[in-house]
């Protein structure tokens, strides 16, 4: 993992000292809210519906056990004993008091964490495949590149006031678990003639105008990563619209100017700035890469899994292949049926930190699906890990299944929300459990957002749910057939929305219809949808309309 240098520590200490003084000046009245708001947002402090919220960046979703223990301590000492992991691999604390925030930031700095650039029109936390460094199918660990991008973009003087926020995601695997096609820049590590490079996508994004990213360069040599990204962001910085916030993201810039013109401008700029990079970035990358050297793998015998149905059912869905065949990747679901997606209590964080220290070479990852990953668990320890998770109520076996729902905070917390998301996710998961159909339904991605900003990625859910305010009443719109992976697609709107108490039954009807419609048990929901088109699913959603038409 990346280790902070003295300069990094000094930088954070100075930023926190400044913010402490700014808070004091706000409290004593020398700063107005208008003056203070941009300062607090630069330090990740939002004001939500019921309280402040501190958003802490978890760079490319990687945490050490010490860092997770510190997050647990912060949750307990200054919040309400839990934290919420987000789709951007961040953690949010929902109840801090203004005066405590400088202390929280100092505590974070002790373990090399901060909240800088988790807001504002800047380059946000660089996200990555949550199986990075562990996946059996990756070309290379993308985290050194993500760290290089993080260092380059943090406090970058030219990019603090972009037309709009800017999100970069990196994956080392063609399987794309990082939703790179829905990011402003998506980077996919590839190998060609024994060399590492990138496919570069640009202009993806969800929100009001969802777009799938377009290929800007099919092959970018690894050495050109920073100058090329700098070229993209500076072209956007000049061209991006500042007159209309809804048209300010790079996806609109690419859409309005066309990918050819953007490519021409980026290549022109790249040629201009590339000589200035002189190789310092590559030296830095090599230094960073050394810090991400794989752990020393244990060479233990792999016993067969004990014949425990609970363990086997869990291993079936929550365990993935590791690059080292003796090892496995364990995903810990934070989606117990009826629980808030992505929430972990301080106690659970400590259990996970202890398990990582004992069984996973001290590493954890946070997934954009709002789960926690133990990336390097020796197969000899799977049963012990499962037993410990079970004791902590963390052994829900539903990763990738219907109740592994992504849900944004929605109107239970978020000031921008138009409706709630969390209770809808809770209701669907509970219903699925009551029906006992989860295993049978198989892989299914349900994603819920509480407003058009789409933090819950609803557009790319196999079933997407968008909460809206229709004349003062919560209303939920369903989209079908979206996908977040390499076959990324924007879901299609199914029809009129559903009231709050109708949305769970509507999803149930969809699942029942799917079970009847699929060709064979292996045909996933999204595949059946692609094969059959929307009509039979719409008929299930709107039985009265179907009856009237008959």
């Amino acid at each position: 993992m990346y280790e902070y240098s003295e300069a990094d520590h000094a930088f954070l200490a100075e930023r926190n000292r400044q913010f402490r003084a700014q808070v004091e000046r706000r409290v004593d009245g020398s700063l107005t809210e208008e003056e203070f708001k941009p300062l607090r947002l630069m330090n990740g402090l939002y004001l939500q519906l019921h309280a402040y919220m501190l958003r802490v960046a978890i760079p490319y979703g990687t945490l050490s056990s010490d860092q997770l223990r510190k997050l647990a301590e912060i949750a307990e000492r200054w919040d309400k004993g839990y934290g919420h992991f987000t789709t951007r691999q961040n953690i949010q604390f929902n109840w801090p008091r203004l005066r405590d925030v400088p202390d929280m930031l100092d505590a974070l700095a002790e373990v090399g964490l901060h909240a800088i650039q988790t807001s504002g029109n800047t380059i946000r936390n660089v996200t990555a495949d949550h199986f990075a460094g562990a996946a059996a199918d990756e070309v290379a660990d993308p985290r050194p590149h993500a760290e290089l991008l993080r260092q380059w973009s943090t406090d970058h003087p030219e990019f603090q006031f972009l037309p709009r926020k800017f999100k970069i995601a990196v994956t080392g695997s063609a399987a794309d678990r990082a939703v790179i096609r829905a990011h402003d820049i998506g980077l996919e590590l590839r190998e060609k003639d024994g060399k590492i490079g990138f496919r570069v996508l640009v202009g993806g994004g969800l929100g009001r105008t969802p777009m799938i990213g377009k290929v800007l360069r099919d092959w970018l040599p690894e050495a050109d990563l920073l100058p090329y990204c700098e070229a993209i962001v500076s072209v956007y910085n000049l061209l991006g619209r500042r007159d209309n916030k809804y048209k300010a993201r790079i996806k609109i810039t690419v859409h309005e100017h066309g990918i050819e013109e953007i490519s021409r401008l980026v290549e022109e700029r790249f040629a201009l700035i590339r000589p200035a990079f002189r190789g310092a970035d590559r030296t830095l990358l090599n230094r960073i890469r050394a810090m991400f050297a794989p752990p020393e793998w244990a060479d233990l015998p792999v016993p067969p899994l004990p014949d425990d149905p609970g363990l086997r059912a869990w291993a079936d869905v929550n365990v993935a292949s590791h690059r080292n065949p003796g090892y496995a990747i364990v995903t810990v679901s934070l989606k117990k049926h009826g629980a808030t997606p992505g929430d972990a209590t301080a106690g659970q964080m400590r259990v996970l930190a202890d398990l990582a220290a004992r069984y996973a070479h001290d590493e954890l990852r946070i997934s954009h699906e709002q789960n926690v990953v133990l990336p390097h668990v020796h197969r000899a320890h799977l049963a012990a890990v499962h037993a410990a998770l079970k004791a902590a109520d963390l052994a829900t076996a539903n990763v990738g299944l219907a109740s592994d729902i992504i849900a944004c905070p929605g109107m239970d917390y978020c000031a921008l929300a138009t409706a709630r998301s969390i209770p809808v996710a809770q209701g669907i998961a509970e219903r699925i459990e009551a029906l006992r159909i989860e295993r049978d339904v198989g892989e299914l991605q349900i994603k819920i957002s509480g407003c058009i900003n789409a933090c819950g990625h609803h557009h790319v859910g196999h079933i997407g749910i968008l909460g809206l305010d229709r004349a003062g009443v919560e209303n939920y719109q369903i989209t079908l057939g979206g996908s977040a992976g390499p076959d990324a697609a924007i879901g299609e709107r199914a029809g009129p929305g559903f009231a709050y108490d109708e949305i769970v039954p509507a999803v149930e009807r969809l699942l029942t219809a799917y079970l009847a419609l699929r060709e064979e048990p292996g045909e996933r929901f999204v595949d059946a949808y692609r094969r059959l088109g929307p009509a039979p699913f719409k008929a299930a959603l709107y039985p009265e309309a179907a009856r009237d038409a008959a």
Partner: protein
Amino acid sequence: MPRAFAAKVLTANDLLEGDVVYLAADDRWVRDHREAELLEDEAVAEDRLLYAESRAAEVVGPYLADARGGPDGPEPIHFREAFRTRGPSNYPHGKQADV
């Protein structure tokens, strides 16, 4: 015909705690919607908003929210404002914890 003015309460978030607050008739910031002053006259409501903005050292983001009179005091109209009187629906946190 101009639309009739819908009654309002003046609400904001407390500067230090972030908690939802309402302006009472005696100029106190209160935490309970039912203790808020119901503003039934548009000019008075606008005046109260200006007044609230002058108290920026205590609160953040004051605004007028639709409300109606009820047996125990003003009641919210929109569901967003109703949630603000209670707290989130997934945990007994926020105002509902104090009841």
